[in-house]
């Protein structure tokens, strides 16, 4: 298991109840696997998770990106800026 930092924004932050939390996930998990872990813990996140983008250490990543220990992972619901 590795420890990572999760950051939630906007609707996701409100559903989770906090903007930031520490999480333990299996070694070599990718973003798709992280999503499943998050949905198990917070079932209400499912719809947003399926449409969210993810960033690791402030860089956008794809579903197959492998997460490393101490990474900062951001859960980014569909954008509505502008």
């Amino acid at each position: 298991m590795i420890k990572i930092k999760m950051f939630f924004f906007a609707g996701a932050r409100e559903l989770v109840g906090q903007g930031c939390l520490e999480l333990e996930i299996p070694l070599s998990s990718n973003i798709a696997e992280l999503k499943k872990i998050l949905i198990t813990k917070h079932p209400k996140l499912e719809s947003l998770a399926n449409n969210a983008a993810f960033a690791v250490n402030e860089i956008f990543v794809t579903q197959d990106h492998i997460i490393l220990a101490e990474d900062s992972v951001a859960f980014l619901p569909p954008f509505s800026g502008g």
Partner: protein
Amino acid sequence: MKIQLTQKAIDHQKMVENCRSKVTGAIVLFLGTVRELTGNEKTLFLEYEAFAPLAEKSLQEIALESKKMWPIHQVEIIHKLGKLEPGETSIAVCVSCPHRAEAFAACEHIMNRIKKMVPIWKKETNPEGGSNWVHPISKPTS
């Protein structure tokens, strides 16, 4: 090139003057402003939130990408965060180019990219006190 997220009112006058030059013939300024009505839903105010470091980086990338596509002399993008009331400017994009077709195309392209690519979100609050985050699943709102 100036990219900014701010809590203050956007000074579009200053943006235009920063983009004005003797070598360009066209300035296009776009302002996104808060609408009071979306369909039949009334909005009392909006709250904008950003993942600031990545939002700034994304805005930078969009500006740089646009400079490769058009002969942009100067470009400024400012997005307001926090609470905004109907009529207020949430985003301003200003571009100067030698000719007008380029300036229009560049400014519109930048706005289209911002809507799609930049981690910023808005929450609508209605006069009854109800509120919800806008997370467009199928298509971005304008």
